[in-house]
């Protein structure tokens, strides 16, 4: 049995893991960079160890410092969260080599699924369609031509070595292929030191749908339903929901079966997510496997009722899964909005600053996972995620309305967040009808912003009135319902009194 867990992460996911540890009566150790000394994950943990300065490379990615922290605190297991070292096979192996339990799939599985080619081959062998052309990358124009004519135009050229849009080209006709291929290859070479590219069929109006799977060390594999993650900005998810409002029951079943087959084929262990693209005609293609807990796991927890982090810890301890496939009966509808420190109506540019006010939504069906507090400075060092607001409803319309209500309640002052953007989405006809693909933000950002600005006339007047009264308040007198004096000023007053009385 695991006796003490070190969480090799920060922010909301570290807080999330601490909570399950505490419910299992397992002490939790936080690590922190110097920039995070005052972060909630440090405050909530039983123990906290500094692993280096602000830069991730010097702290959260510093394997030897993390292992030293585990040794120092006698932690016997490491939970990597998501991001940072979560899918790093070398780290997982190092953890196991010093005799600690790695809460995640085996290093071999991480390596196998971390490689695009081997992952796609595994998926294909398990019966999952892959995007036509996308099995192996090439640097040869003749091979590219052959693939293109096989899958049919338009095609997409995509760098094998990385992502983020670099080395990407859309080709609609055969005579455009050669110049596009050459440019993509040279971009890929300079960006990733790897000039191979994929030549893939273009998926029109694609949906991003993923299946949550869970496997124990005794060969049991289950699936916990799908998540629709098509609302993305910069290829990163921002709003997710389950069940998908788009896929048919038949596709749901097929994806679920394929996900299980893939997990079985690589002897998967723990929590994993099999990602698929689904086109407008419900054709689906394997994308990749996320060999860790997903950011958006809470919505699956809300509809199934199972604590996935607790299950990860149990499975890593060698226990069999605590539920069977039959026990998994999703109920109702859940939605997640990721709260990033970004201005959704200014190109999602990251926002830094100090959170001077934090009003968290609450009430029936609302769950907030966050790693912030009033007075916390949001630094530019890490991922801009502040937290995740999730809601559950009996029905999708109820969940959408509940999310809108919760977002309206959410007060974060000091940094720009994606709260206004998400609120606009909850009030947008296309999302309300459940009709959207990964093109959603491209198609509707203008409408969303217009909705968000609709009551500017009234609100700007209220703002002007507020500022005016604020000004006069220092001439006349403002009713003060704050009732709080700073410890400092108490201290100063006290010091004064003591000086007097001595």
């Amino acid at each position: 049995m695991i006796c003490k867990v070190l969480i090799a992460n920060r922010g909301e996911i570290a807080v999330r893991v601490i909570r399950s540890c505490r419910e299992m009566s397992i002490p939790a150790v936080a690590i922190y960079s110097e920039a995070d000394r005052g972060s909630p994950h440090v405050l909530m943990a039983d123990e906290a160890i500094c692993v280096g300065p602000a830069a991730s490379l010097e702290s959260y990615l510093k394997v030897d410092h993390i292992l030293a922290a585990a040794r120092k605190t006698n932690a016997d297991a490491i939970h990597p969260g998501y991001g940072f070292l979560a899918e790093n096979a070398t780290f997982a192996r190092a953890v196991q080599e010093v005799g600690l339990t790695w809460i995640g799939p085996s290093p071999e599985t991480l390596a196998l699924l971390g490689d695009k080619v081997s992952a796609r081959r595994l998926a294909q062998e398990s019966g999952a369609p892959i995007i036509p052309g996308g099995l192996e990358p090439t640097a040869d124009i003749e091979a590219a031509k052959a693939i293109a004519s096989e899958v049919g135009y338009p095609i997409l050229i995509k760098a094998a070595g990385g992502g983020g849009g670099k080395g990407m080209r859309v080709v609609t006709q055969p005579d455009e292929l050669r110049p596009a291929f050459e440019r993509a290859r040279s971009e890929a070479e300079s960006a990733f030191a790897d000039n191979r590219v994929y030549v893939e069929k273009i998926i029109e109006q694609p949906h991003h749908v993923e299946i949550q799977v869970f496997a124990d060390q005794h060969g049991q594999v289950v699936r916990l339903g799908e998540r629709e993650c098509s609302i993305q900005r910069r290829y990163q998810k921002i709003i997710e929901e389950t069940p998908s409002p788009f896929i048919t029951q038949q596709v749901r079943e097929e994806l679920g079966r394929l996900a299980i087959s893939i997990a079985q084929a690589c002897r998967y262990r723990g929590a994993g997510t099999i990602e698929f693209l689904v086109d407008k005609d419900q054709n689906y293609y394997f994308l990749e496997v996320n060999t860790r807990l997903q950011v958006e796991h809470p919505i699956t927890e809300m509809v199934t009722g199972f604590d996935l982090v607790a299950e990860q810890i149990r499975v890593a301890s060698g226990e069999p899964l605590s539920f069977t496939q039959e026990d998994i009966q999703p109920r109702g509808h859940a939605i997640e909005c990721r709260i990033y420190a970004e201005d959704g109506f200014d190109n999602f540019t990251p926002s830094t600053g100090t959170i001077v006010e934090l009003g968290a939504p609450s009430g029936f069906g609302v769950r907030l996972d966050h790693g912030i507090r009033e007075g916390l400075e949001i630094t530019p060092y890490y991922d801009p995620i502040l937290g995740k607001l999730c809601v559950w409803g009996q029905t999708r319309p109820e969940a959408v309305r509940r999310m809108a209500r919760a977002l309206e309640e959410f007060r974060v002052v000091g940094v720009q967040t994606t709260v206004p953007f998400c609120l606009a989405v909850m009030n947008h006809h296309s999302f309300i009808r459940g009709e959207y693909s990964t093109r959603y933000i491209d198609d509707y950002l203008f409408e969303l912003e217009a909705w968000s600005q609709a009551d500017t006339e009234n609100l700007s007047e209220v703002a002007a009135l507020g500022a005016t009264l604020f000004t006069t308040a220092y001439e006349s007198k403002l009713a003060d319902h704050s009732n709080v004096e700073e410890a400092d000023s108490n201290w100063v007053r006290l010091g004064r009194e003591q000086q007097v009385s001595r």
Partner: protein
Amino acid sequence: MIFKALVADREIQLKLRVESGKPIVELQEYSPQLDLVKLTAFSYSLLVDGQSHHLSIQPSRNGFKVDIRRRTYHVRLQDELDITIAKLGLKDASLNQSGKVVAPIPGLVTSVNVATGDKVGKGDHLLVLEAMKMENEIRAPLSGKVTDVHISPGDTVEKGVELISIKGREDLK
């Protein structure tokens, strides 16, 4: 007192008076019932005719940063003087790019900080013009050399009168 609030590209005209200790604000011929109370360091509750608004108000260098319903508005309040200046069409007259520094309003020169031959930087304080019970600091509209000082402390000037001449760096080349 008449304020003008600049917020979200709008100009909102406000009349403010205090009646038995309570501020009354008139907004386009209409006085809403207002009640502002402080909640925490930055957080305020404002009732406008019973409509409840939970605001965050932070004074900033240029006015106020007001957060309301997940929106941030920057509010600048202009008082009577500013409005009067603006009405006279002389707002920022002293900050034009010519070398002529003129009186934006009628007033009394109370002090002069420069003399002929001085080099000045853009924005440097040149003189103080007392008007409408306010001391208005007149600054250099451009960097250069003072070629003439037309006034002395104690002088009363009409609006538009030239006060100081500056030859800009460009001209000096």
